[in-house]
């Protein structure tokens, strides 16, 4: 039986859909598991990092065995997805996202899921999904979690819904950026945010329901209080998706995202989030 809310047509769209997951850590773990389980036709998993035992408290798609072998996270996640549903076609990109692959991801997928852990990658991915007047925009399902707080939205999913840059035209100062390495993050909290991302991605792929585009969910895990707020509309002045954009899929190749928003990932040394104990 097909779920009434999805319907046969929705199920067919889901099976034909292509979704990309950027980051196979705390958010990407449930996203990849639930998209594979739901039978999204093609999954592209992107991560340049290796599985680390100190992350397993929240990165539940991986195993201690993969951590011992220092398996790439996208490869480890792909193996778990295939064990769950062998009918899903899974491709991995076993490196960190760069501008060329971001543009290609946005072109080649029906939905992109941002499970990254830094501002630079968030801007790059949003620009790739939103940018360029001559391109269709690609819906971007974006979540983040730090400590006991989570945030979730869908960008660039309708003509008047904002992109990430519409809402955040200026990048935060580095000192203001809490990351997992500063504050840790509660595993089940990230898990809930990731499962909700997967829900939004499945709805977009199947063409059902009302997406979160233009809204933002704020979850305070310590109180378990949840707030849904209305975001501004797509901005005419947005550098990426406004009426005269300065950022296009071609120009993002030359854009200095790390200069704009801080480092995209750790380069050698201890893993960025090795410090998260819970």
């Amino acid at each position: 039986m097909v779920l009434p809310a999805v319907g046969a047509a929705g199920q067919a769209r889901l099976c034909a859909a292509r979704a990309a997951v950027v980051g196979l850590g705390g958010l990407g773990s449930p996203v990849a598991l639930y998209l594979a389980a739901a039978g999204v036709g093609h999954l592209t998993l992107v991560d340049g990092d290796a599985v680390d035992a100190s992350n397993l408290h929240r990165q539940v798609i991986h195993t201690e065995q993969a951590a011992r072998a220092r398996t790439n996270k996208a490869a480890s996640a792909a193996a778990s997805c295939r064990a769950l549903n062998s009918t899903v076609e899974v491709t991995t990109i076993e490196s960190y996202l760069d501008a060329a692959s971001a543009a290609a991801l946005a072109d080649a997928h029906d939905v992109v899921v941002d499970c990254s852990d830094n501002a630079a990658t968030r801007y790059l991915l949003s620009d790739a999904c939103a940018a360029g007047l001559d391109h269709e925009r690609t819906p971007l399902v974006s979540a983040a979690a730090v400590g006991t707080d989570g945030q979730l939205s869908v960008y660039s999913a309708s003509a008047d819904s904002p992109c990430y840059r519409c809402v955040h035209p200026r990048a935060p100062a580095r000192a203001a950026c809490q990351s997992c390495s500063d504050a840790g993050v509660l595993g089940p909290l990230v898990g809930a945010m990731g499962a909700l991302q997967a829900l939004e991605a499945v709805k977009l792929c199947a063409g059902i329901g009302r997406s979160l585009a233009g809204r933002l969910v704020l979850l305070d895990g310590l109180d378990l209080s949840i707030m849904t707020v209305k975001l501004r509309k797509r901005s005419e002045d947005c550098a990426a998706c406004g009426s005269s954009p300065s950022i296009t899929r071609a120009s993002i190749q030359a854009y200095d995202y790390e200069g704009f928003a801080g480092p995209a990932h750790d380069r050698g040394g201890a893993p960025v989030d090795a410090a998260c104990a819970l």
Partner: protein
Amino acid sequence: MVSLSLRFGGGLEALTGGAKVVDDAECGGGGGGGPLTARALLAWVRDNVITERPELFLAGDTVRPGVLVLINDCDWELEGGLDAELADGDVVSFISTLHGG
């Protein structure tokens, strides 16, 4: 004075001594009997609620990049941004945007 309920989230509560909720805040700063604007409220919050590192709350005359301001569950940009006018009973939330994952 306008009586507001203030919320701080996404880690911004670290700047208020841990307070996530400040109910019945009697916010002044309207000046000359005019309505209280978001602009005036920001200064009032900085002076009366923020207990440390105000530079992580304000940058120039507005919130620092990465802080969302919500008036009654709506992005303040929909209400006029710094010029939004506040009334008794409004709930104003300040939420720091997260990047972790």
